[in-house]
């Protein structure tokens, strides 16, 4: 089970809280998922008051840990200030650090990400960086103070699943002792099972669950797939072979001529 900054988590499913059809469905999906960590964000509040207070009360009633994000931030300064405001608002030093480098792909600006991660780590934050599957960037993030890495497997919200599975496997092999979470791009439970079979410690889901026709049933499917993938990883699956290998013993076969 994942260990994030010394805190042992019993669920390998981290769940986002955006885009659900209703707060009721969100709450039901969280309960069904068994998730212990929910991602949240912060946005400008109008003086007339919005639904933010009710949303925060709903999250608090679910009795889970929150992982605030810096979604939408495109600069180091924006991300750092947003992280500090999140720490004030949510009362946690955990931060899912996003520094977006491109409007269309929502690809991380990995240079800004490393810089922001260093600033925040030195300020006492426990940083969960949304990054690419680039091993060198991962190394730089660890040097900056991160103790968790969260590579994407495809663009945010794309539901494409692992587009570069070999790179994800190499990432796992290169960082054997670092908690790794696949963040972004998963679409189906089979995708989650696949990355868990690679040995990832957890996945972070949002759109794939929230925008499904039945989010509660979908998160149950994901939860089972994650458990199956993790069990398969622990059971050490066979590596693929190019040639056939008979599964039925050939010794003792009758010979008919």
């Amino acid at each position, binding site marked *: 089970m994942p260990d994030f900054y010394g805190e042992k988590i019993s669920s390998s499913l981290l769940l986002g*809280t*955006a885009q659900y059809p209703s707060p009721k469905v969100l709450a039901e999906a969280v309960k069904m998922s068994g998730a212990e960590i929910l991602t949240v964000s912060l946005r400008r509040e109008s003086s007339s008051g*919005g639904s933010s*207070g009710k949303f925060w009360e709903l999250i608090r009633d679910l009795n889970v840990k929150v992982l605030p*994000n810096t*979604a939408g931030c495109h600069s180091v300064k924006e991300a750092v200030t947003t992280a500090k405001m*999140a720490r004030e608002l949510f009362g946690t030093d955990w931060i899912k650090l996003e520094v977006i480098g491109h409007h269309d792909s929502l690809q991380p600006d990995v240079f800004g990400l490393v810089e922001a991660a260093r600033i925040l780590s030195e300020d006492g934050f426990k940083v969960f960086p949304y990054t690419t599957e680039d091993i060198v960037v991962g190394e730089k993030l660890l040097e900056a103070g991160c103790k968790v890495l969260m590579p994407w497997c495809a663009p945010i919200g794309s539901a494409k699943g692992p587009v570069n599975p070999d790179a994800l496997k190499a990432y796992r092999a290169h960082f054997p002792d670092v908690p790794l979470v696949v963040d972004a791009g998963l679409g189906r439970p089979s995708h989650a099972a696949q990355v868990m079979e690679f040995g990832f410690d957890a996945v972070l889901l949002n759109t794939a669950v929230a925008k499904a026709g039945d989010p509660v049933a979908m998160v149950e499917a994901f939860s089972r797939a994650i458990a199956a993938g993790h069990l398969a990883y622990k059971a050490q699956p066979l590596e693929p072979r190019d040639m056939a290998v008979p599964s039925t013993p050939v010794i003792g076969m009758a010979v008919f001529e």
Partner: protein
Amino acid sequence: MKLIINGETQEASSATLAALLDELAYDHEFLATAYNNELVAAEDRSSCVLADGDRIEILSPMQGG
């Protein structure tokens, strides 16, 4: 004086950030605030003195992925 509050220019008369939240009828409970791009903790809002042209951000919890 004119302040830029959450990206919009508004007239306000409050001397401090805490007073501004009252003037604009914000509920203080679920807010984080920034003054000219720097966090202002809740306990420091009453000593955060405002001047014409200052930029204020007032954020609250929101759904996120």
